C-alpha cells in the first residue's frame, strides 16, 4: 500500500519535473533564437553599409564627367567614404557614416543644377542603387531595433525572465541616432 502511494507520488513529481524541464529548454531555445536574430540583424547593417561604400566610386565617376566645377563636393564624399571604411569602434563608425550621409546629400543638391547629368542613363541607375542602399540601411537598423525590442521584452517578462536570469542572457542595446535631424538625413531626395 505504502509502496503504491510512494510510486504514485514519485511518478507525479517526476512528471511535473519533466514538464518543467521541457518548458525550461523550450524557453531557452526561444531566447537563443531571438538573440541570434539580433546578431544577424546587426550584421545586416554592416553588409548594407559596405554596399554603400562600394557604390560611391561609381557615383563619383558618373558625376565627374558632367560636374567638373564641383570637385570639392566630390572630394568631400570620397574623403568621408574613406574615413567610414577605416573607422574602428561603434561610435567612430556611426559618426563617420553620418558624415558620409551628409556629404552624399550635399552632392545630390549640387546634382540638381545639371539637367544633362540627371537625364543620363548611367546616373539614373546609380541614383536608384543609392536610394535603395539608403533605404536598406535604414530598414536594416529598423529590423535590428525591432529584434532587440522583441528579445529584451522576452528576457524581462515573467516567466521567461527566470530562464534568462539563470542562463545569463544579457540585454541588448538599441541602435539610436543622436538626434531626430540625423535620422532624417540619410533619406536622399532627388
Amino acid at each position, binding site marked *: 500500500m505504502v509502496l503504491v502511494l510512494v510510486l504514485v507520488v514519485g511518478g507525479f513529481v517526476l512528471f511535473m519535473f519533466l514538464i518543467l524541464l521541457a518548458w525550461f529548454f523550450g524557453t531557452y531555445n526561444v531566447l537563443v533564437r531571438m538573440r541570434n536574430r539580433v546578431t544577424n540583424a546587426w550584421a*545586416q547593417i554592416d553588409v*548594407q553599409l559596405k554596399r554603400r561604400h562600394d557604390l560611391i566610386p561609381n557615383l563619383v565617376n558618373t558625376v565627374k564627367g558632367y560636374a567638373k566645377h564641383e570637385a570639392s563636393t566630390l572630394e568631400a564624399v570620397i574623403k568621408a567614404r574613406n574615413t567610414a571604411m577605416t573607422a574602428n569602434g561603434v561610435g567612430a563608425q556611426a559618426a563617420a557614416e553620418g558624415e558620409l550621409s551628409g556629404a552624399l546629400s550635399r552632392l545630390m543638391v549640387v546634382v540638381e543644377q545639371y539637367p544633362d547629368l540627371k537625364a543620363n542613363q548611367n546616373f539614373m541607375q546609380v541614383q536608384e542603387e543609392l536610394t535603395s542602399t539608403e533605404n*536598406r540601411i535604414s530598414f536594416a537598423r529598423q*529590423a535590428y531595433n525591432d529584434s532587440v525590442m522583441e528579445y529584451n521584452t522576452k528576457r524581462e517578462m515573467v516567466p521567461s525572465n527566470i530562464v534568462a536570469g539563470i542562463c545569463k542572457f544579457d540585454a541588448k542595446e538599441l541602435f539610436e541616432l543622436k538626434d531626430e535631424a540625423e535620422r532624417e538625413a540619410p533619406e536622399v531626395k532627388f
Partner: protein
Amino acid sequence: MWEAISANRSKSIVLIVLMGMLLALLGAVIGGVFFAGEDGMLAGGAILGVMIAGFIWFVMTLVALFQGRNILLSISGAREVSHSDAPQLYNIVEEMSIAAALPKPPKVYIMEDKAPNAFAVGTPENAAVAITTGLLSVLSRDELQGVMAHEIGHIKNLDTKFMTIAGVMMGTIVILADVFMRGLIFGGGGRRRSSSSDKGGGQLQLILFLIALVFAILAPLFAQLLYLACSRSREYLADASAAVFTRYPEGLASALEKISANHSKLASANRVTAPMYIVNPIMKAHAGGNSLFSTHPPTNERIKVLRSMGGGAGLKDYNEAFTKICGKAIIGETTLRSAEVLKMRGITTPEPPQLPKNDIKRQTREATDILHRLNHFAFISCPCGVRLKIPPQFNKPICKCPRCGKEHPVKIA
C-alpha cells in the same frame, strides 16, 4: 511579430485539422457507398475510403511542398527577373525582406497582364513574389514598396505556407466529391450491386447513399468557407505587417486605391489561387462586399483602416484604426502586449500623392522595358534622347535612329 505569427499558427492548425476531418469524413462516406462488402460491411468500406482519401491528399501535399511554388508561378504565367532586368523592383523586394528580416530575399517574378495585381508564394526560406506589368506601371516607388511589404508580410506570417497546405486539402476534397458525382452518373456500380443482394442492407445502403450525396455537395462548400474565413483576416494582418515594415501606411493605401480604380480581371487566376493575390483577381473590387464567400475584405475598408492610423505605424496603431472602422479587434491580446508603438517615418499627415501624368508614362515605359529586357532586346541610347530597342532577331550591323538619323553600330551576338 513573433507572437503574431504564433497566434496565427495555432489558428491555422485548428483550421487544417477541421479540414482534415472533413476530408476523412467525405472519404469514409464515399468509401461506405462504393466499397461496402456483400453483407453491408460498412466499416471496411469506410476505412478503405479514408485510406484512399488520405493517400490522394498525401501525394498532393508532397507535390505541393516540393513543386507548389513552381506550379503556381507557371499557372500564372510569371517569369523570373534579375536585378539587371528590373533594378527598382528587385531593390524594393530586397529592402522589404531586410525590413522583415526574412532569412533569404524572395525571388522576383513578373506577369505580363494589364490587370493590376501581385501575389506571393512559398515558405520564408524559399519564397517568390510576383507582380503584373499593369500594376508595376501605375505605382510610384513608395506605393510599390507598400505592395511588396504586404506580400512579404504574407510570407513572414506564414500565410503562403498555410495557403499551400489548406489549398491542397480543399483541392483534394473537391476532387473526391467530383469523382463521386461522376461515378454516380457514369456507373453507380457499387450501389446497384448491393441493392440486388438482400433487402435490409439495400435500404441501409440507400440511406447512406443519400447522406453521401448531400455530403459530396456540401463538403467542397464547407472547405471553401474554411479556406476563405482565414484568408480575409490574413489580408488585414498582412496590411498591418506592411505598415510595420515600411513605417509608411500611406504607400500601401494609395497603391490599393489605384488598384481598386481598375476593374480588369486577371486572365490567369482561378478560385484556388485567388486568395493569394493582393486584391481579388476574379471579382470586382466593389461587388460582393464582405460576404462569407469573398476571398478578400473590401478594398476601400482596407484603405480606410490604413489611413486612420493617425501617424503611427505599429500593430497597436493598426489595431486601433481597425477597431474604430470595423467595430472589433483584429490582432490578439498577447501580440499587442508585446507590440510597441511605432512612429511613421517622414510626414505624419497622409497627403494623397498627386503624380504628374508623364510620371505614369515613364513608369509604363519602364515596365515594358523590363519585358523587352526579358525578351533579350538590346538598348541603345541616342544622343538626341531616343532609346532604340533592338529585337534579338535584328541582324544588320548598323541601326539608324528614327528621329535624328544617326547611325549606331549594333553588336550581333
